């Protein structure tokens, strides 16, 4: 389906949070996250490709967000500079604690955890979007949970 500029803007509104949060979980820095998010939506506005469905658009946006943050890590700018850290202020201590623990996971694990628990994506969908094998995603998720349990200090109040 061909999307008009107006429709694109509507979709930007709709998926902004999704892309922003995903980028934030990957880069762990608000300012960089904003830059990458802007880049992702610029790409979306620019693209002439035809999408099959809205699900396709969503998957495309996730993929572009993942790639954009990946290329940020490999950019010479990132290698040469030390980003300003601005921690997010949370309303509850639990959220603050959880965020600080999730941040300690590897980028790969953070992405999988986020897509699985926040975007409610199935392992199959995650594998499709990230272009990985289902078994790889499954083992990543398993390891991420295991690591999180360890980081959360064996708190029994979280059921995974």
């Amino acid at each position: 389906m061909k999307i008009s500029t107006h429709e694109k803007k509507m979709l930007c509104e709709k998926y902004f949070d999704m892309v922003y949060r995903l980028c934030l979980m990957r880069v762990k820095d608000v300012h960089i996250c904003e830059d990458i998010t802007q880049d992702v939506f610029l790409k979306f506005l620019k693209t002439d490709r035809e999408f099959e469905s809205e699900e396709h658009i969503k998957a495309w946006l996730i993929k572009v967000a993942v790639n954009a943050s990946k290329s940020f890590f490999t950019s010479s700018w990132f290698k040469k500079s030390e980003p300003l850290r601005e921690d997010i202020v949370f309303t509850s201590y639990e959220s603050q604690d959880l965020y600080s623990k999730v941040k300690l996971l590897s980028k790969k694990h953070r992405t999988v955890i986020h897509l699985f628990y926040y975007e409610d994506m199935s392992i199959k969908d995650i594998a499709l979007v990230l272009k990985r094998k289902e078994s790889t995603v499954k083992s990543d998720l398993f390891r991420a949970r295991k690591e999180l349990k360890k980081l959360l200090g064996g708190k029994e109040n979280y059921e995974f």
Partner: protein
Amino acid sequence: MNFKDAYKNMQNDIEPKREILNNLSYEEDKKTTSFKTNRFRHSFALMLIMVIAFSFVYFSNTQNQIDTKTPKTNSDNKTDICDITTQISPINKSRSIDNDSLNPSTNTITYDNYASYLGFDILSRMVIPNDLVKNETKLNYALENSDDRGFFNFANHDGTRYINIITTKLDVYNENYADYNLYKKDDLNIFVFFEGFTKEEINSFENSIK
């Protein structure tokens, strides 16, 4: 508590800055695109210039190397062989040539003498790991691993002593060169491919020790 709920609560606590989205407009996008395109063009032009410069330098060097490989005249023979000897091995630099092996009365030119003259008799005192080059593949190994001039290095286990073995890359040399001489030390089971000297050079060498 369910981790999923806790994680969602945590995420909902984060307030994305939606101003970014307000700043996005198609017109702005076009500007950005054109800026990026120009930047891309500049980078591409710069890269192209670098590639051309690199190619020029590379081909000039290659040409120089080919020039140095052209057969020399008979009058240059001595110098030529000595030059090659110098290039062969750091060990050979410190060795004096065994003049006995070049005694005209007892020696005619053979590959052994040639090896001796070039310092390759030191092979008999060297231990080269057998697993470095397998018997069947050593010739290919030598050919594949030699550099453009046909030289490559073997290091001993202790890494302190080196032997340079001259190899030939068959596709580099032309018909002006003599046959490639295969030299084998049975006790070490090592093949040494001598660089193909010209027939004139070999004749001249023979004449010099007769």
